């Protein structure tokens, strides 16, 4: 009960702060929109290897860019615990009579909600940038697709907030932040098949793609929204769940060990 309330309070705090951060909301949508505009229109009509001919590239891109947006938003919100540390607020959280697990879960819940809101917003915007469902989709299939999309979005969120939190728990301050952006976030993105099929990657690099949690989530998003994917949908779903559970446990473990002053 106490623990649940703490999770709720931490979640609420994230939401209140998010609703006030106009620049953050706009800023985090600017990049995916530009990707869709420039890549989408730039390559529309081009025949990219590994993509079925009947799918326009913009449509192929939308699930990938939604995945990217979720990845970036989630990693940032996981790492944002370092800002709490910098401003001293982490101490206030850490002396509360609440288990570290609940604190970690509260953060993850808050971050997941805000990045989910952004992902859904991006999904709506994508219809103005050339996305549409396949004509063959029945209304039921569309509803099912959207539900599955939300599930995969939530799993991406959990996985990468937890990863961000794991990094933050092992860092004293925000100094290593850019390193993580450049050497973790961008590789995760490029190796996930978000903008081009991983079958076009050299075999050795492709192994990294298979180890990347985002690969399966992006593939699952494509299955949900376009009805086309590399792996069976269920396989994507199971792997995404496994990665999420693993990452959240890892984050809880690191967070429990971390010192807050």
């Amino acid at each position, binding site marked *: 009960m106490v623990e649940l309330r703490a999770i709720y309070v931490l979640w609420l705090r994230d939401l209140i*702060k998010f609703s006030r951060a106009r620049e953050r909301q706009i800023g985090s949508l600017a990049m995916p929109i530009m990707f869709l505009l420039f890549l989408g229109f730039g390559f529309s009509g081009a025949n990219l290897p590994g993509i079925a001919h009947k799918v326009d590239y913009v449509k192929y891109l939308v699930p990938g860019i939604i995945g990217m947006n979720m990845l970036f938003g989630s990693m940032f919100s996981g790492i944002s615990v370092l800002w709490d540390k910098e401003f001293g607020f982490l101490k*206030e959280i*850490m002396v509360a009579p609440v288990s570290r697990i609940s604190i970690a879960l509260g953060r993850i819940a808050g971050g997941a909600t805000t990045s989910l809101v952004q992902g859904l917003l991006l999904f709506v915007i994508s219809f103005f940038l050339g996305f549409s469902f396949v004509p063959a989709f029945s209304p039921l299939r569309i509803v099912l697709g959207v539900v599955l999309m939300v599930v995969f979005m939530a799993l991406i969120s959990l996985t990468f907030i937890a990863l961000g939190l794991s990094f933050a728990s092992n860092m004293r301050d925000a100094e290593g932040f850019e390193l993580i952006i450049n050497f973790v976030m961008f590789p995760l993105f490029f190796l996930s098949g978000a903008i081009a099929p991983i079958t076009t990657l050299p075999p050795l690099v492709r192994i990294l793609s298979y180890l990347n949690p985002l690969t399966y989530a992006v593939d699952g998003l494509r299955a949900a929204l376009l009805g086309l994917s590399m792996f069976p949908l269920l396989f994507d779903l199971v792997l995404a769940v496994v990665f999420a559970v693993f990452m959240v446990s890892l984050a809880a473990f690191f967070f429990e060990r971390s010192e807050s002053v």
Partner: protein
Amino acid sequence: MPAIEVKDLVKKFKDALAVNGISFTVETGGCFGLLGPNGAGKTTTINILATLLKPTSGYAAVAGFDVTKYRNEVRSNIGIVFQEPALDSKLTGKENLEFHAMMYGIDPATRNRRIANLLDLVELTEKANVLVQNYSGGMKRRLEIARGLIHKPKVLFLDEPTLGLDSQTRRLIWEYVKKLNKENDVTIILTTHYMEEADYLCDRIAIIDRGKIVALDTPGNLKAALGANASLEDVFIKYTGKTIRNIEEREKIW
């Protein structure tokens, strides 16, 4: 059972021996002062007692619970006003207090009443709905004190609580702390460099320098040891060989 028990406590950082084997006990309902120059190890001691840092060696217990083994139990018995800012600047003053009250499981009616009273006490009622990032240093400090008092803990740590406040607000805070200590039986551990503050609030004072306790007694006895007219300031100089320095530097934080 004493409210606080510390035995041979040591904390080593990579490049510093911050706490070098201190021992003391504080009885339930007491007010214990830690007086010492900058860098003496006061904040480190408090952080260990509040479960934020793990000691290198030694024993410490709060409300009967070992601080390394029963962290959750310790936490549910303490409140703390940190020396350095620990507010969420993107929330309003009132939201900061509400966050705290909710984390400590205070019911809504009590929460609203206490928050209103405390905002009044620290004279922030009018600024309650302003984002903390727009507060002045003194306002933040006052808000922080109000927050530490919301949940009426068994043991309250005050790490240089009135640093940087004007003397009028300081007086108000003292009265409230004294009332909390005497009427509600809240045990208080206070660090300060205001002699007056330790003298007025504390029934026992430890003078700490370079991680060691160099004197421990009642304010009266400490003063008496130096002659009838000695002030705590004199006591401090006698035991540590210095006045309390770097005060201006520290006040810059606020």
